[in-house]
């Protein structure tokens, strides 16, 4: 049984009043939806809040979901609209101009939203990660799956911390280029 069919069943149960079925939907889609938001608005607390709001909105409008369509895409569309709203709200607050880095990231997000919600950026990212050399995938695993610090990675690999940081930089750069190559250029 594929995910799409299971999603359909779960949505049916939610519509019948079974709240627990929605929890399964959240568990199934949370990680990718959050990654989708992260690629557009890479500000940690905004990712958390927008993902949360997206699922709540989806639950309250579950009757509007078109049977047979892709639930993941529907969720991405919801999140996309919330990201856009958040960017507008954020830019209106002068106080937020003071957080320089955060401001840069949000401002960029506002410019880049023309890319739309349909581009499967997360799937492309996963494909690109799979195409990396094994050593680079291992480095990513240490940083992102095992949450190791640069110092810990450097010790484990017998390298300098500077090497770890620079290599991670290059891997991320390569991943971005790979995604853009597959999806077409993304506004920056």
């Amino acid at each position, binding site marked *: 049984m594929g995910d799409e069919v299971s999603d359909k069943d779960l949505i049916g149960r939610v519509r019948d009043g079974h709240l627990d079925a929605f929890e399964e939907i959240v*568990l199934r889609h949370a*990680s990718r939806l959050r990654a989708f938001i992260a*690629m557009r608005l890479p500000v940690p607390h905004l990712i958390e809040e927008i993902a949360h709001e997206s699922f709540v909105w989806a639950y309250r409008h579950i009757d509007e979901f078109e049977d047979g369509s892709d639930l993941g895409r529907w969720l991405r569309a919801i999140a996309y609209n919330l990201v856009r709203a958040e960017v507008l709200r954020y830019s209106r607050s002068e106080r937020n101009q003071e957080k320089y880095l955060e401001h840069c990231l949000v401002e960029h997000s506002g410019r880049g939203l023309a890319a739309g919600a349909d581009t499967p950026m997360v799937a492309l990212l996963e494909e690109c990660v799979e195409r990396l050399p094994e050593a680079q995938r291992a480095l990513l695993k240490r940083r992102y799956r095992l949450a190791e610090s640069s110092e810990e990675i450097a010790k484990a690999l017998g390298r300098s911390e500077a090497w770890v940081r620079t290599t991670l930089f290059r891997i991320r750069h390569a991943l971005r280029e790979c995604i853009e190559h597959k999806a077409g250029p993304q506004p920056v």
Partner: protein
Amino acid sequence: MEPEWIDALLSGEWPEERCRAIEASLEKDDEARSELIRQASIDAALKELWRDESGHQTSEAFAKGVMARLESVGGRAVARSVLSEIIEEREWRAKTHLWWGWRRRAEVRRRDREDRQRFQSDWWKAAAVAALLVGIGIVVLQSVSLTQGSRITVAPGLEGVYLARVTSHQDAAWAASSLHQIREDGWVKEGRLDLLAGHAEVAFNNGAKVLLEGPVVFSVETDARGFLERGRIAAEAGGKASGFVVNTPRLTAVDVGTRFGITVGGTGESEVHVLQGAVEVSRVSGNSVPLLVREGGAVRADDRPLSQLAQVEFRGEDYALPAAPASDLHLPFIRYQFEGTGGILKQNGMGLSGSAYEASLLSDAEFPGKPKRSPGIFGNALVFRDTEGLSLGSVGRFEENSGFTASFWAKLPPNEDSLVEGGNLLTLVDPENHPLWQASWNGDGELGAIGALRVSGQGGGACTATTDLRDGRWHHLAVRYVGGDGGFGMLTHLYVDGKIERISALRSGSLRISGERGDSRLVLGALPSHSVRGFTGQVDEVYFFQGAASPALIQKHAAEGALNVLSDQE
């Protein structure tokens, strides 16, 4: 820019000073900034994709948060709005969410330690303030003189406004920095209170009370919200004070009508223990889903920004409840009930004037038009037309800069075209009938919200509330002047139906009082000799207190219609 720098910025592994230097470089380097943005999106996406394996908040915990919100109908909107308000007003978010947030927290802790060391050498100053606080509540009346005010300011900030009051204390030793926050008679402006030892009770203007147990660092942020930075407090916030908020570095606790205790540890980890009623608790970051914690329940937010609230063992016995409500019925007061029959009104009260005063409802030379009796909020009331006025008895002399409280009920006709000019409700006049200050409903949009309670002094100080009173219903109104230097408007609190009002316009002007003019009097409605227009509507249960009454007393009047207090004429 070195590639290494961007990774260091994203990982937050470098000290804040170094990160700030990189930030400064980025501002001048478009190419590097563009690369940072590209890197940040990949970095954030990878973290989210693999977060379940990285030991950070898992999808399961995230899902639980979403489900908790879906299951708790109603409370969510309150918590979210409170959260947004807090985030906009304070920049704590920046300290906890940026990549190098842990560095900032360390800086905050280091600064606190330095403050504490410095304050400990000033313990004797703290003791002096404690001694001064003993004298709270004794105020004497004198007559008033006024000076020119400054321009109207719409939607003022909190600077200069007293938001709460230290109402009692025991063995309290305040840090030197707190001496600037606490006026001699206990009034507290927005800011940080550092209680090194002992206990102190802080009464917020919305009626909530917080008991501080030293050592504790607690900031008064608004008249209905505080921030517990470190230490332990117990709070009581039922009735009109419901919705009182205590924020900590890790959570937001919104009172739903209850008593509760909160402890914040050295790294911001926070616990809420609900002693009575219920409290809505949410994290200030990450998945800020509110949980409704009921009596006997307790939750903990640890120092990791994205982890969930966790239930912990209830330890209500650790939290001393606020002391019994401080009675301020000892304040001298005068009362008009408008009961009885015939044309005579009698006043009663305690400590003011000494003898009963009888006001006639029959027309005389001073007031050709007098009000009539009618059914009121509590027994009889007086019904006025805008040309009618009535002089009441003496309220004694004011001491310079002393406070007062006028607490009464009023009913204005529903909002109609004819009711557009504003009208004078209550005036304090000197022995020569010169108005010193007056409470009215506002009819001028340039002076604040139309139809709202407004108080103004002849010296130019004024403030206007927000609630439109023109709805044909009885409203309890209170004007509380806390006294002291700093401007009449700034030092005045307005209450409608027991809740403190947001101020729609403010003009600062002093209300100085000269003791040479003798006793002052209250006048209801019009002041014919000075061509001051009265109001159309009713007034009932007028109390005038010689001092700043507590929110609890004002709210008791609002809740019960009349105050069940002893008078020295009964």
